């Protein structure tokens, strides 16, 4: 269904675009055919004919606009000569506003239905469902206000379009009305603020409650332009890190003087068990990134020097979502949502939500962070460690 709609929309926009594009694609095809064997000059020539074509098209439109303008002028003058009134632009503009109101309302409705069907599916996390509800309430309120005010704006513009026969109604103020429309938005906004405030506090209050099983701790570290994922081992605890320990092999700078770090795991995919609370520790190494997982309604910036975390509970497995969306290749994604450099647009990580059994199975197959190569490196470094750090500092201060 959705795809059919997409095609509809494609054809619609294509019709619009093709008005401008039609001949240029012909030229482009010609260019494509000729450039492969031809020299730069020929390519240049076709390029400039393309440009020339657009310039001519523009000039043509400008001339047409000029001619239409002149026709209006002539019509106006002749009717004035005949003693009739000229064109009444006040009426024309008033009607234009009504036409815009009707066409615009339909366009907005069409957008809500067509493009609205392409937005994110229902939230796949516990707090996300609350957010979706709140979104719908806010949407309901704003969309009513939107249509009412726009109808009033364009409707009044049409109804009270100027005429020499009328005089406007002198109405400088009315304190009662003003009080009403100050208080009503204030009340509505207060309700939204209060519900928003409590939902926000609930989402961000991320300490594990007493008696609740501890959340799964996972480190997500952003750097240009990828994410590194570290799982705790059997102890459920992640080893501490220090950015000064970063090397080619120890990419995250894990400190192996901390025993918790020995069984840490490194993973390619963020795999999460369904219906288990997950605590993502969000870190960045170089610039600010942002962990964004729209399906779970999760977003938090990854700031170098300022570790943050987000706690949430996924509720729908990837497999369930695939059947729900009727899309066999669907994957949850984690991607960067804070400008971080040239590769910002391609910084994704696949997120997979699986059953508890699958999760344990997957976890057992993951490689330890502390691999043999890293062990070797650490042993070598151990000998001259203190000296090395001092030298390092000196070098950095230069």
């Amino acid at each position, binding site marked *: 269904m959705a795809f059919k709609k997409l095609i509809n929309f494609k054809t619609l926009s294509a019709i619009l675009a093709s008005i401008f594009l039609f001949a240029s694609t012909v030229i482009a095809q010609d260019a494509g055919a000729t450039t492969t064997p031809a020299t730069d000059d020929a390519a240049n020539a076709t390029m400039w004919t393309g440009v020339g074509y657009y310039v001519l098209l523009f000039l043509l439109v400008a001339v047409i606009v000029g001619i239409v303008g002149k026709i209006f002028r002539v019509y106006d003058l002749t009717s004035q000569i005949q003693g009739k009134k000229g064109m009444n632009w006040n009426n024309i503009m008033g009607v234009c506003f009504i036409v815009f109101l009707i066409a615009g309302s339909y366009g907005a409705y069409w957008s809500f239905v067509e493009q609205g069907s392409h937005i994110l599916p229902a939230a796949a996390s516990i707090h996300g469902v609350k957010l979706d509800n709140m979104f719908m309430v806010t949407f309901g309120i704003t969309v009513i206000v939107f249509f009412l005010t*726009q109808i009033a704006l364009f409707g009044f513009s049409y109804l*009270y379009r100027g005429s020499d026969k009328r005089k406007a*109604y002198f109405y*400088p103020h009315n304190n009662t009305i003003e009080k009403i429309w100050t208080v009503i938005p204030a009340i509505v906004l207060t309700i939204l603020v209060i519900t928003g405030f409590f939902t926000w506090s609930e989402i961000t209050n991320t300490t594990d409650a007493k008696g609740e099983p501890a959340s799964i701790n996972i480190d997500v570290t952003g750097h240009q332009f990828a994410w590194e994922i570290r799982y705790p081992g059997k102890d459920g605890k992640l080893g501490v890190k220090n950015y000064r320990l970063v090397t080619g092999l120890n990419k995250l700078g894990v400190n192996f003087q901390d025993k918790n770090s020995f069984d840490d795991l490194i993973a390619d995919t963020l795999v999460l068990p369904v219906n288990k609370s997950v605590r993502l520790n969000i870190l960045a190494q170089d610039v600010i990134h942002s962990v964004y997982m729209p399906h779970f309604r999760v977003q938090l910036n990854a700031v170098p020097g*300022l570790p943050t975390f987000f706690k949430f509970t996924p509720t729908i497995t990837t497999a369930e979502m695939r059947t729900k969306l009727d899309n066999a290749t669907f994957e949850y994604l984690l991607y960067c949502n804070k400008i971080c450099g040239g590769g910002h647009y391609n910084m994704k990580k696949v997120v997979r939500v699986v059953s508890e059994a699958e999760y344990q199975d997957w976890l057992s197959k993951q490689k330890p962070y502390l691999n043999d190569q890293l062990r070797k490196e650490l042993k070598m470094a151990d000998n001259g460690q203190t000296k090395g750090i001092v030298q390092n500092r000196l070098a950095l201060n230069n």
Partner: protein
Amino acid sequence: MSTLAVHDHDVAHHNDHDEHHHQDTFLTKYIFSQDHKMIAKQFLITGITMAVIAMILSVLFRIQLAYPDKAFPLLETLLGRFAPQGRLDPNFYLSLVTIHGTIMVFFVLTAGLSGTFSNLLIPLQLGARDMASPFLNMLSYWFFFTASVIMLGSFFVTKGPASAGWTIYPPLSALPKAMPGSGEGMTLWLISMVLFVASSLMGGINYVSTVLNMRTKGMDLWKMPLTIWAFFLTAILGVLAFPVLVAGVVLLIFDRSFGTSFYLSEIVVNGQIMPYEGGSPILFQHLFWFLGHPEVYIVIMPALGISSEIISTNSRKPIFGYHAMVYSLIGITVLSFIVWGHHMFVTGMNPFLGGVFMITTLIIAVPSAVKTFNYLATLWRGNIRFTPAMLFAIGLVSFFISGGLTGIFLGNAALDINLHDTYFVVAHFHLVMGSAAIFGMLAGVYHWFPKMFGRLMDEKLGYLHFWLTFIGAYLVFFPMHFMGLDGVPRRYYAFTEFESMKQWLSVNVFITWAAIMSAVAQLAFLFNFFYSIFFGKKTTQNPWNSNTLEWTAPIEHFHGNWPGEIPTVYRWPYDYSKPGHHEDFIPQTVPFSQTMSSNLPHDFEDNETGLEALAQWHKANPVKEEVK
């Protein structure tokens, strides 16, 4: 001619002053002018030039978004190394986005809007001969001009202009290794912004002191047009907020060039451990948005002021709830200082702080709503003249509603989690502060063009310009909401890397063509503007039958604005269609004694003798007209 008139009427001590201006050379009249009207025109034309440049930049990146896989040899010819093989370089794409935003927000909608209309209208609508300090005013323009040149100059450095987004968050902007644009390009950006802020401070101080000290006789604060109120409050906002940006920028310069760590901590770039320790990138965001949020009101308030004036004049009706309009402007001014945190809900800032900022943010929606309702009430039962200025003012209200409502989503910290930095935000602010403010500016240009150049702009071309731009802007920004709701992030070079985003490629093509249409429509404006300066129809002194003081000044310009004495003001500026008066407007300079038939008890609130005189007059002239 007109200066002679000054000699005839003016008191003796003004003579020296006027003599001085007889020797106007080209240099002192058109370049280093100290006349507020000329400075206003300088700001306007520089602002328009910058707007056109920023618009072209936006068309470039729109083409990239619509056709991410297609090569355009022309781009390589025009941009050289920034578009190898006819495709934009990803880093240069970010530069385009950054410079587009910077120019539009600061150079067009701050300097171009406030600079033009505050300079033009504050002295003219208040009845002053010039600004409090004409010299500072001239400096303000030339600092702005230098800042513009440096900003554009950054396109000519090897690694390209700044590209960390217009908000230039460190560490991205602080580490030249993080991206090419954070090299010399960023240095130039920072220098340019420091000059810009200096310019804007000089302007702002001037506006505030002029409004407070140089009003003509009878012009008390509650008789000022809403334009002046808006410019006045905007200037206060600017004077208080811009220095904080300079503080932030200077610390960033320190981090970049002198090895300090104000914003930097625990950084490893490309495997290299950096020595910075103990700073906080969030600190910069606090400093930036402490300016940045008032900045959006610096952008929108003058536009609201201008549209208040235009809507009232062209509806032939007093603005509804003048006092409420002023109080809501004051409310916005005060509240705008305590809402900056709503840009930072998901930065990792303390969540409790986020909750507080959410409350203040949604409170600021109340005065904005009041303003909207008052505009609608002003249109109600008016006698609306659709001049191009009026069309743009109505368009502004429409955008202000559409964009303002989505602010209720984004101001809610909880909803912001999923909407932050997506196209939803792009749609929101382009409607509410981008399109709305530029419409305010265009409305102002159409309305006060006769005052600036003594000629009228062509109305029909104005209509064409309005409809193409109005429809185009909605076509561009409305679909973006849905992209945002699908979780498409802003500042992405291409949507091709994500399967889920590919469904929006066709929408991107549509948006790009709508943007190109709107961009082409601006040629109608540019032609109209420049043609009318030289060949437009000559204007009459008060072409819109307006009440405000600027239309009592003679058409031809001279330094000093009015020959002879400055007119005295007797009434508020919105006596349109007052019952009992033979015309549908009563200029501010007409005393109540001349309009006995239309006076209302309300006009004499704190004036008992006036009230008595009115009562006596009513006794002497029993009501005839009102009865029928």
